[in-house]
């Protein structure tokens, strides 16, 4: 199964059979080259920085560590084979855009240009890091069962907080774009691939690298800054922060590239007849998210380069005493950071509005308004970032403007609620697991949104800024919103992706435990914040002890409910392997008209699109697409 017609890139053509599986570029070589690259970069860096004041005054050599991480990235990319294409073009070798698409299981461990393989790689990677970050949260809640630092040392506690926050932000930004976006967007628009398949694979492998680089912060002494990396604390921190900087940069680059790829795909690769007004709402969600990613993520990467310079060569972008300003970091970070939180919201809107019509058996209500709402959110998200700095003293006279612009966002967000409500009007709701998660999305996101109104009001923000109220607010929007939507999306689309059914009963147990314990965990934290508990502390007022113990117990149960999800995945996909029908939900959408799992080339012929996928209830609705002489839907399960 290793033989293939696309072997032109592989420099090694014959090996002893024992090495067959390792032949060519794959994650094993990438790991080896990354470790070798780190050693080389570290050695070079230590030579370069050996005599500089910046390095001899500390016990950790930032130049060496940063160069090590840089070279490790190069080694990783080279080991996976991303350099062979540009090098091949330079040396005039013939090239192909399709690589390792029919290489058996090893394609999941290497550069593969099949968008469906990349999506599955993404899903596994994102879920892996999601569980790692979730485990950090369990440790955090464990420590908070006591009102004073006990079993986790104060420095390690901050590292846990930083790892949890940064890992979740990084992985959830890619959490829908990567797995569901890469899998579904080409299929939904009637394309055989993404516009830039190699870039698509690169973004996925950069995400994996970013996750491991961030975890390496543990080996480098941890970092004390949380996910916001505020200067000058980041400047003062030990070398663990270098891992934070490099990993966040890698994710920034990855996100920007995902965005470019998505936008190009959606604009240029649509099948005939796929007009803008027939585009599934999920694809609109991916498009608007991508626009945010393309415009915001590079700002983060640029700002992080400034931090690197501040740390490694003693520039003064953010150091007040030598002419810089900590406010500069705040501005740049939140200019990225606020669009970022909508990168974490818009995909959720897309998923739930895609799922609701299927299980309400009604057309999506107010399609154009939903699209406008998404663009409204995307546009406004660039105009609100200083609401994170209401009490910082920066541009205090602009606070009324930022209060206004922040509150304006509730108009397009409210539109999404109207779409959901309209779709449910006189519907024929089936309470499947994906539908339950979608309904819970509205419940949670409503609480998240209304608590946001408190934070947008300057006077009220003085009470709650920097407290657990904020923390509860964004967990309601990101976990209660995006993660619930993602879970709904996974239960909805995984039968298509894997070809196997997920256990419905376990899914319902997972949903109800997650929903109940999510609310029991985070709702009391609004009160904790109002009662004066600052974020990111491991010791707090004794009178908040009972509340925190309650929250911790609920959080452990929430963690356990995630294990039910994991158990369901493993049980259904690895052990039970019950074949899913091609269209178990009776959806009208294009992806469900294909066999499960979808064949490598998606469509034998590029289909002609006849209508939007929401024709429920129209007695004379046309088939969503014309597949030509061969109708693939008739071949369910025939892979």
């Amino acid at each position: 199964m290793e033989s293939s017609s696309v072997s032109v890139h592989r420099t090694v053509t014959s090996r002893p059979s024992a090495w067959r599986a390792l032949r060519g570029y794959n994650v094993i070589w990438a790991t080896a080259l990354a470790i070798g690259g780190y050693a080389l970069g570290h050695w070079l860096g230590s030579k370069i920085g050996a005599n500089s004041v910046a390095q001899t005054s500390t016990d950790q050599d930032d130049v060496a560590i940063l160069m090590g991480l840089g070279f490790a990235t190069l080694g990783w990319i080279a080991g996976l084979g991303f350099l062979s294409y540009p090098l091949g073009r330079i040396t005039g070798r013939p090239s192909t855009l399709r690589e390792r698409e029919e290489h058996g299981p090893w394609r999941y461990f290497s550069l593969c240009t099949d968008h469906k393989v990349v999506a599955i790689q993404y899903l596994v990677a994102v879920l892996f890091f999601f569980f790692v970050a979730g485990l950090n949260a369990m440790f955090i809640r464990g420590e908070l069962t006591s009102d004073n630092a006990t079993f986790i040392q104060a420095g390690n506690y901050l590292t846990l907080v930083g790892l949890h926050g940064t890992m979740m932000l990084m992985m959830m930004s890619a959490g829908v774009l990567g797995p569901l976006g890469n899998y579904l967007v080409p299929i939904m628009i009637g394309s055989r691939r993404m516009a830039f398949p190699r870039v698509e694979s690169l973004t996925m492998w950069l995400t994996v690298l970013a996750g491991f680089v961030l975890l390496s912060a543990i080996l480098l002494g941890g970092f004390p800054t949380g996910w916001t990396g505020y200067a000058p604390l980041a400047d003062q921190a030990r070398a663990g922060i270098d891992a934070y900087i490099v990993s966040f940069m890698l994710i920034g680059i990855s996100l920007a590239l995902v965005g470019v790829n998505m936008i190009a795909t959606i604009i240029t690769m649509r099948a005939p007849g796929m007009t803008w007004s027939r585009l599934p709402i999920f694809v609109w969600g991916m498009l608007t998210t991508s626009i945010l990613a393309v415009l915001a993520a590079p700002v983060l990467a640029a700002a992080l380069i400034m931090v690197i310079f501040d740390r490694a060569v003693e520039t003064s972008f953010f150091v007040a005493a030598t002419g810089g300003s900590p406010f500069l970091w705040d501005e740049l970070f939140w200019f990225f950071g606020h669009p970022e939180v909508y990168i974490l919201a818009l995909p959720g809107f897309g998923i739930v509005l895609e799922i609701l019509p299927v299980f309400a058996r009604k057309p999506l209500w107010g399609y154009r308004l939903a699209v406008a709402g998404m663009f409204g959110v995307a546009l406004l998200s660039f105009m609100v970032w200083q609401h994170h700095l209401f009490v910082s003293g920066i541009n205090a006279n602009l606070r009324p403007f930022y209060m206004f612009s922040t509150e304006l966002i509730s108009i397009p967000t409210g539109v999404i609620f109207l779409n959901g409500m309209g779709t449910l009007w006189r519907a024929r709701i089936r309470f499947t697991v994906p539908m339950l998660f979608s309904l819970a999305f509205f419940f949670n996101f409503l609480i998240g949104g209304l608590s946001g109104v408190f934070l947008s009001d300057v006077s009220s923000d003085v009470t709650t800024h920097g407290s657990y109220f904020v923390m509860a607010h964004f967990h309601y929007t990101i976990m209660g919103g995006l993660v619930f939507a993602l879970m709904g999306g996974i239960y909805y689309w995984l039968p298509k992706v894997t070809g196997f059914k997920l256990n419905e009963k376990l899914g319902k147990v997972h949903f109800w435990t997650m929903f109940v314990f999510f609310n029991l965990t985070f709702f009391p934290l609004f009160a904790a914040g109002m009662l004066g508990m600052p974020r990111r502390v491991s010791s707090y007022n004794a009178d908040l002890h009972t509340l925190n113990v309650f929250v911790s117990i609920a959080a452990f149960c929430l963690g356990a409910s995630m294990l039910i999800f994991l158990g369901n995945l493993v049980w259904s996909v690895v052990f039970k392997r019950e074949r899913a029908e091609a269209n178990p939900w009776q959806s009208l959408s294009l992806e469900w008209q294909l066999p499960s799992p979808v064949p490598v080339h998606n469509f034998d012929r590029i289909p002609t699109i006849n209508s939007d996928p929401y024709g429920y209830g129209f007695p004379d609705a046309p088939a969503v697409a014309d597949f030509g002489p061969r109708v693939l839907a008739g071949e369910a399960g025939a892979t």
Partner: protein
Amino acid sequence: MSESSAALPPMSAGPRHGVRIFATWAIATAIVVPVMIWVVGPHIPPGSTSQQARDQHDVNVALTALAMPVLLMIWVYFGYAVRNFRQEGEVVVDGPPITGNARIQATWLIVTSVMVLGLAVFGTIDLLSTGGSGGGEGPAPLAKPADAASALQVQVIGQQWEWTFRYPGYGGVETTELALPVGREVEFHVTSLDVAHSFWAYELAVKADAIPGSDNVAYVKALRTGSFQVRCAELCGLWHGHMNTTGSVLTDAGFATWIANEQKENAAVTKDLPPYSHVYYPAPLRNG
């Protein structure tokens, strides 16, 4: 946009869903909003220790009361839909093919826009009329309380992981305790010597970030004597969670005695301090 279809069985219990939803919502709102204002409201932080705490308390109660009708509308609607618009059994039946309703959409947009505009106007007027509501306003505050000119100036200096306080009106004496006179306007000047902190006097409802190289002004007028907690609300490194102290609001006479005592006790230290300034630039501590 046809609302009925030959393929559809008739809806049970008539089409008066809208009326029922509205009635449920109206009743729920009529009960919940007064409860929120008069039963829960008095317990909503941050209390009434200072003028600013009162202002923020009023805003928090107002926003809670305003949030309830919205919350209830969505909950009642979804609850009603989930209860009444369900399809039991294995049969898959399509609902009516309604794709939108321009009038409802326009009404929704207008209503939410009016609410948002109202919130913004309310928030702005409130911010300006309460003298900044206890929040940090930077070196040149837009909103000042009426008697700001005669305010007692207190500088708050954050450093890892300790708060100190300087009283420029009393020879620039620097203390480790914070004491304020009751009933008098106080002008905090918050700054930092190393990394970003945030000065949070919880019961006084004051919060102002302490940023190195920056002078952040916040006003407060304490209304009652007693103690209050001071915390750090911005992650500042290892002992961020321990950067606490207790301040006190004293009577005028008590404050005069206290500050005179501090001046005497700290006289030797005050002599060696750098001259009072809104910002300080100590050599940065870099890379561990």
